[in-house]
């Protein structure tokens, strides 16, 4: 294929690409509007909501799920799904706790270990998807199960306790009065957001998700790039896992069961499409904060946990239904 043909292929997809971007922006806007409405409502309903302490709390509480949702978004854009994020986060968290406890390494070294563990899980997912050609659902379902098993094997099914105070730095420390976890989340979101929207790699990620075969024909090294997406996502999940462990100063073998659902919900509320090719980091962050606000607000207002779950379910329905509606209208307009 000549460079000219390749350009023609890209040109042909440009129109579709632009209208997709518009539709993502629209659902992002809707989610953002919902976030603002909820924010104002909670400020009025609870005198304790709009305080620096509570806002920092919400930020720290959302940090882990936001980072993992960012990872999930990358995978969803490639028309994949990562069910293994909970197990990967738990494995990374307990491994970090174990190296701190047994080898006495610093929290930074532990974080690197966690990121490496996460990346390794991602590499397994990536190879299974791109080389073995398993559907992402199946590949990550296997990793989810095997990963959880590994967590229990390495911990002997006991929490990893008796860690030094210094291990709490990642989850509980502050930089200039701002919780460290929030700073890390912001940096991760900015970096991945830039990567997806500004880099050539990002373009290829969207292209693979829209049409893998077309991307392959356009000369994109899909195997390598798809694997890279899973490795990067795994590394981020590992980072999320060590922050979660640090927040409770222990490695919890049961951590993260059901986390994949929160991460998928955040991405989908933010406009990512499970059919691939669509999704933005800004939207995912909005989705993650929307879920977090519902949970925070429910506790502040003394609403039972059962209603919180119903509300999150309703938001997912509403977000995706509205998204579909807008998309059909855009398609009808051509």
């Amino acid at each position, binding site marked *: 294929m000549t460079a000219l043909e390749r350009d023609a292929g890209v040109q042909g997809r440009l129109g579709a690409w632009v209208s997709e971007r518009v539709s993502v922006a629209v659902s992002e806007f809707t989610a953002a509007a919902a976030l603002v409405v909820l924010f104002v409502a909670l400020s009025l309903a609870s005198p304790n909501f709009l305080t620096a302490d509570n806002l920092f*709390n919400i930020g720290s509480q959302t940090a882990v799920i936001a980072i993992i949702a960012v990872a999930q978004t990358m995978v969803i854009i490639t028309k994949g799904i990562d069910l293994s994020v909970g197990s990967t986060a738990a494995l990374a968290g307990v491994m970090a706790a174990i190296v701190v406890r047994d080898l006495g390494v610093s929290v930074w070294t532990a974080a690197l270990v966690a990121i490496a563990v996460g990346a390794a899980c991602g590499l397994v997912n990536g190879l299974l998807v791109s080389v073995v050609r398993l559907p992402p659902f199946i590949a990550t379902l296997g990793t989810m199960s095997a990963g959880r098993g590994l967590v*229990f094997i390495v911990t002997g099914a*006991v*929490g990893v306790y008796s860690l030094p105070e210094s291990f709490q730095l990642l989850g509980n420390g502050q930089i200039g009065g701002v919780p460290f976890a929030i700073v890390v989340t912001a940096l991760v979101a900015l970096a991945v957001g830039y990567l997806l929207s500004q880099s050539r790699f990002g373009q290829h990620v969207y292209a693979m998700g829209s049409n893998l075969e077309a991307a392959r024909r356009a000369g994109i090294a899909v195997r390598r790039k798809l694997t890279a997406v899973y490795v990067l996502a795994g590394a981020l999940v590992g980072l999320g896992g060590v922050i979660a462990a640090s927040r409770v100063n222990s490695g*919890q073998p049961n*951590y993260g*069961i059901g986390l994949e659902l929160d991460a998928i919900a955040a991405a989908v509320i933010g406009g990512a499409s499970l059919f691939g090719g669509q999704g933005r980091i800004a939207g995912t962050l909005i989705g993650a904060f929307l879920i977090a606000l519902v949970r925070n607000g429910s506790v*502040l*207002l003394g609403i039972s946990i059962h209603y919180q779950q119903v509300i999150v379910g309703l938001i997912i329905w509403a977000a995706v239904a509205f998204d579909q509606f807008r998309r059909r209208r855009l398609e009808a307009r051509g």
Partner: protein
Amino acid sequence: MSPRFRSRWTIALLAAAATFALSACVEVRDGGGGEETGPVDGPLEIAVAPKAVGHEFWNTVKAGAECAAGLAEDVTVTWDGVAAETDIEGQVNLIQNFVTSGVDGIVYAATDSAALAPATQSALDAGVPVAMIDSGTDPQPSEVPLYATDNRAGAVEAANLLADALGEGDHEVALIEFQPGSQTNTERAEGFTEGLAAHANLELVAQQPSHSDVNEARRVTEDILTANPELDGIFAANEPSVLGAIQAIESAGKTGEVTVIGWDAAPDEVAALEAGQIHALVVQNPFNMGFLGVQSMIEHLREGTPMASADTGVTFVTAENMASEEVRAVLEPSCDNPPVDQ
């Protein structure tokens, strides 16, 4: 065939495969008549299942079970459990698999009192005796004993401990429960509310579950502290709830301001008690649960002695009494110095 259509087929196939796998699991073993067999002289294999693996509490149950097996001859304990307390169906399957694999007796803690009742019954029908530990089933067959903590009484006492610690005057308190709907959770939550009723100066201003997840316990406690800046006391009703709650209190800079009554005695809970982050712990005797469960199962299998339910007891541990011999035996149970009446 469009890619979207193909992925639907994948899901349909997956569902079919899952259904098949499940139906394979519920295949019933031919129990050889289903009647109680006579005393067994040879080696015994006793399956012991916790609600979930991964918590200190259940590892102590395991130590107690293995201790009882070690004191008898030719008894092996097979320890297996689901990963999460919420995996009720997984536990149903596990009990069925124990029966299928031909164990001599099953000692387990039900993740759900109603859902596990048929599993217990089908084990009995297959001629495998069952003893329950920690959490029983509803209905509980008369030949199945329960070795458990009186959760309600322990939680009533937790309310009393909190009232004593807070003293005169009006106080706001909160409850961090763990798994709404589970028997144990209901008993502790109701016991605590019942206990509070006796202290008119204590008001329960918040009640949220942790789902036995330390991170979630921390999150709900942070939010409760935000919503109730005047909060004076917290009763956290299990290990993960306690660990998350004290993290939240510490990060809010309220250690010492908020009095915590906890439940169970994981190493970090004991350390927090020593550090003054926790006022008192209601400590069950999981070692005794595992020990009594397996010991009476062995006697039943070997000699035909009927098994009888027993309260395994709670100990109230504070910084003052934690050095005493009796409390030490409960906090650091071992087979050399077992916290059981032999």
